[in-house]
């Protein structure tokens, strides 16, 4: 008597052949692709490689500002180790520069902290925008990962649509943040040495606005986004006199608010 085929056995037992032990379909359905050796590791490696590729051009743009921070630290006679520690801990060039400058000028701690809070206010908005990506993550990452939140990491993370998987987002974020941080620290150190040689007004000063242009243009996919960008730019220009750099977060908030108001007006016009 011949061995019953899977189909025959299924017919006899009343179950689908795909669920019967011993069939190749059963083996594949019971084994998650993610648990196969190499697959999960490959996915993580891909996220890291994507992050390194994306960060590459960004490092060109942060160079001049990083060197400016280094030059300023030298001019303000900031102790070397403490100065580099401030780069690592604060991880925000504009806040670091403002804090060191104010401290050198004899400002009190309250004034320094208020200035820092105003300059870093946009990070609050960035953090709110990224909150869904961080939800569902491990606790250590939710509390420590945001330390890597700066303009560049925010822009890179929000530009990609393939970071919905929590593991992939975490790997991408950490790789982008740490590699950017390593470059930042190195260039600050370089700035203490060669910054004065480069001088002010050099063509390299255009790298920062160029980088942000490069990050903005691909996002201008509809009229509302274009309108929001124009409003933000005009508001930033108009609010330049606001002290302590407070104009920047106000401009962002104004553009975001008007952008949500514009939506029902646009939808009404299209009907």
């Amino acid at each position, binding site marked *: 008597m011949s061995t019953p085929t899977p189909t025959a056995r299924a017919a006899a037992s009343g179950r689908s052949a795909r669920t019967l032990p011993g069939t190749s379909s059963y083996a594949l359905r019971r084994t998650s692709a993610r648990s196969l050796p190499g697959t999960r590791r490959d996915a993580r490696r891909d996220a890291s490689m994507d992050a390194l590729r994306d960060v590459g*051009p*960004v490092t*060109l743009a942060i160079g001049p500002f990083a060197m400016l921070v280094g030059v300023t630290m030298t001019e303000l*006679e*900031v102790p070397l180790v*403490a100065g580099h520690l401030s780069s690592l801990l*604060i991880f925000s060039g504009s806040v*670091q520069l403002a*804090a060191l400058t104010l*401290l050198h000028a004899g400002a009190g*701690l309250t004034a320094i*902290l208020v200035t*820092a809070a105003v300059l870093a206010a946009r*990070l*609050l*908005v*960035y*953090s*709110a*925008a990224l*909150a*869904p990506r*961080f*939800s569902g993550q491990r606790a250590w990452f939710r509390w420590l990962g945001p*330390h890597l*939140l700066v*303009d560049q990491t*925010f*822009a890179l993370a*929000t*530009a990609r649509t393939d970071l919905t998987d929590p593991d992939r987002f975490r790997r991408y974020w950490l790789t982008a943040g740490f590699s950017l941080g390593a470059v930042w620290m190195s260039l600050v150190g370089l700035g203490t040495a060669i910054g004065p040689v480069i001088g002010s*007004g*050099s*063509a*390299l000063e*255009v790298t920062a*606005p*160029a*980088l*942000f*242009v490069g990050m*903005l*243009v*691909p*996002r*201008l996919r509809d009229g509302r986004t274009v309108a*929001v*960008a*124009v409003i933000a*730019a005009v508001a*930033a*220009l108009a609010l*330049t006199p606001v002290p302590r*750099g407070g104009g*920047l977060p106000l*401009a962002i908030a104004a*553009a*975001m608010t008007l952008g*949500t108001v514009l*939506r029902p007006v646009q939808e009404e016009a299209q009907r």
Partner: protein
Amino acid sequence: MNTTTLLVAVGSVTLVVWLLRVAPITLLPTDRLPPRARAALDLTAPAAMAALIVTTLLGSHGEVAPVGHLLAVIVAAVIARLSGHLGWVVVGAVLTAAGADALGW
């Protein structure tokens, strides 16, 4: 500059900035946000990028950037539209600014 004072200031600033970075992520109920709030947050990136372009172009006292830098930003926008590659955008902008500087613009 006194090292102790510096470290106290840096530590305090670090705490303030970290709180700004972490508070929404740990406190915001992202799954219960009203649709308008969610829509507003989705506009953060373009608004922030546009505002940063202006603030990084202006000097520390709000002075207008050199013509060469303005031209470089236009070139950057064109390259971004055509290629979308950040590297070429930055390189193109720097070359434009350098060329304008050489021409005395």
